[in-house]
């Protein structure tokens, strides 16, 4: 065994779309310890809630992250609605669910592309992002934006989707299924991908529970932790929901769960369209948030996100807090990296699908 060496990994690294720094303590090629440090994209967005009206802040919440932006807008709106005891129309809940699942498709396809690129599959990367373009087109068609939706508001949603457009969306995502089959077949059957991902970064069911991991990272180790199971908002309770699980707990299982969740999201969108209630899409919001506090949660593409708001009878909230899924998955990442080969570090980091902008806010 050689002497230990510290290798700095990030904040700028080819596999990292966003900056996180890790000091990797190595003995020969094995990582003994990983010390994370973040803050490179810390913008103090939680603090900004003190200077923006509670209705305006939805736009800031959406800008916490460009990948799960809709979910953040939804989570914040849901928290304020809970604080002010506002009940939103059923149609708004269904529309939010559709946009949220479209967001999940966009996020997982983006991840699949980045994963393929990191594994050296450049053509696969291009195919994943080509399919994602259709999703972005749907987002643009229904919201006017491609990254930031700006359709969620306290009290409901800003835009409706006509029945014809809903049918059109279903047709387009149905076609996507066949294209997803193509990329999933490569991810799930290619020998090179198997050898790079199988048995790498393994976390057992017990370790996931002990480390408090969330999202596909937890579900890939067999932990059925998905807030869509307990969500009182959205359409999940009406439609019924069973999380996608795997049991291997390695990088391959995490990739598999995300790919299978693509099909699940398509089915949820179809379910929402088939059962879409008629009626209003928003209720008027009067007055200011009371001097009270409220917690709520949303299952983001990367896992459970927790939203907290505290009002003080003024137009500004006193506190907004967002605990993002990547924030909860840093602990499991630190554990996974201990004992792995240096060459596997990029794959392990990528398969928790880190979103550093979310993590730092």
């Amino acid at each position, binding site marked *: 065994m050689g002497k230990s060496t510290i290798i700095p990994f990030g904040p700028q690294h080819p596999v990292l779309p966003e900056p996180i720094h890790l000091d990797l303590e190595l003995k020969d090629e094995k990582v003994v310890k990983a010390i994370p440090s*973040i803050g490179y994209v810390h913008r103090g967005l939680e*603090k900004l809630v003190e200077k923006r009206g509670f209705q305006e802040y939805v736009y800031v919440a959406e800008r916490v992250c460009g990948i799960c932006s809709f979910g953040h807008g939804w989570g914040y709106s849901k928290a304020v609605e809970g604080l002010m005891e506002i009940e939103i129309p059923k149609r708004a809940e269904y529309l939010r669910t559709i946009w949220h699942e479209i967001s999940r498709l966009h996020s997982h396809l983006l991840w699949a592309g980045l994963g393929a690129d990191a594994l050296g599959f450049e053509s696969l990367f291009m195919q994943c992002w080509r399919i994602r373009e259709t999703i972005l087109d749907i987002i643009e068609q229904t919201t006017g934006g491609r990254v930031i939706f700006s359709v969620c508001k306290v009290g409901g949603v800003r835009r409706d989707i006509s029945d014809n457009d809903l049918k059109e969306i279903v047709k387009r995502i149905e076609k996507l299924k066949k294209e997803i089959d193509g990329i999933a077949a490569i991810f799930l059957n290619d020998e090179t991908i198997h050898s790079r991902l199988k048995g790498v970064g393994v976390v057992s069911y017990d370790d996931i529970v*002990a480390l408090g991991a969330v999202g596909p990272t937890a579900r890939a180790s067999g932990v059925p932790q998905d807030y869509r199971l*307990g969500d009182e908002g959205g359409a999940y309770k009406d439609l019924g929901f069973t999380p996608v699980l795997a049991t291997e707990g390695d990088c391959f299982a995490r990739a598999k769960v995300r790919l299978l969740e693509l099909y699940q999201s398509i089915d949820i969108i179809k379910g929402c369209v088939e059962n879409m209630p008629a009626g209003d899409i928003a209720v008027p919001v009067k007055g200011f948030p009371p001097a009270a506090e409220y917690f709520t949660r949303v299952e983001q593409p990367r896992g459970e996100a*927790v939203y907290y708001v505290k009002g003080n009878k003024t137009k500004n909230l006193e506190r907004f807090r967002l*605990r993002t899924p990547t924030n909860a998955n840093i602990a499991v990442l630190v554990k996974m990296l201990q004992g792995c080969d240096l060459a596997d570090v990029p794959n392990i980091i990528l398969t928790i699908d880190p979103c550093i902008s979310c993590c730092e806010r």
Partner: protein
Amino acid sequence: MKQIFIQTEPADLLGKAAQYKKDGYRMVQILCTRVPEGYELTYSFDKDYVMENLRVIVPLDGSVMSVTSQYWYAFVWENEIHDLFGLKVEFIAPEVDYGGKFFQLVKPMPWHELSNAKQPAAAVKVNLRPGMGVDATVKPAAAQPGTAAPKPAAPAAKPGEGGK
């Protein structure tokens, strides 16, 4: 979503966290808020999608015991609270106590100051090019020898104009 807040003394925190762990709860997050009394900490625990929150008030010059002995992964939030708010968290598991180096920030403890949320929303100071931003002020640059005098700058927006 049912909201459960349980007021707790700092001395009882570790015992209660141990009880939650024994009862099979997952720790969800730790929230810190600056309040006039010091720091308001909220420890959230989840079981079957129902969340219970322990509420602890720590004086400004006080410290709080780490819960990493019960929930190791709480080190992420404890380091974050230390770096952003300046609250001392005692006995974080030594291998994950980053000693103020978890968040790489230009300004240390940026959220240590008490919130002024009850004040009317002020225009945000935007440090952009002269003439841009809701309250950007423009100072005419001193004329350099051999160059033409600078054009008068556009007037800054009045408070309440152009911004939210």
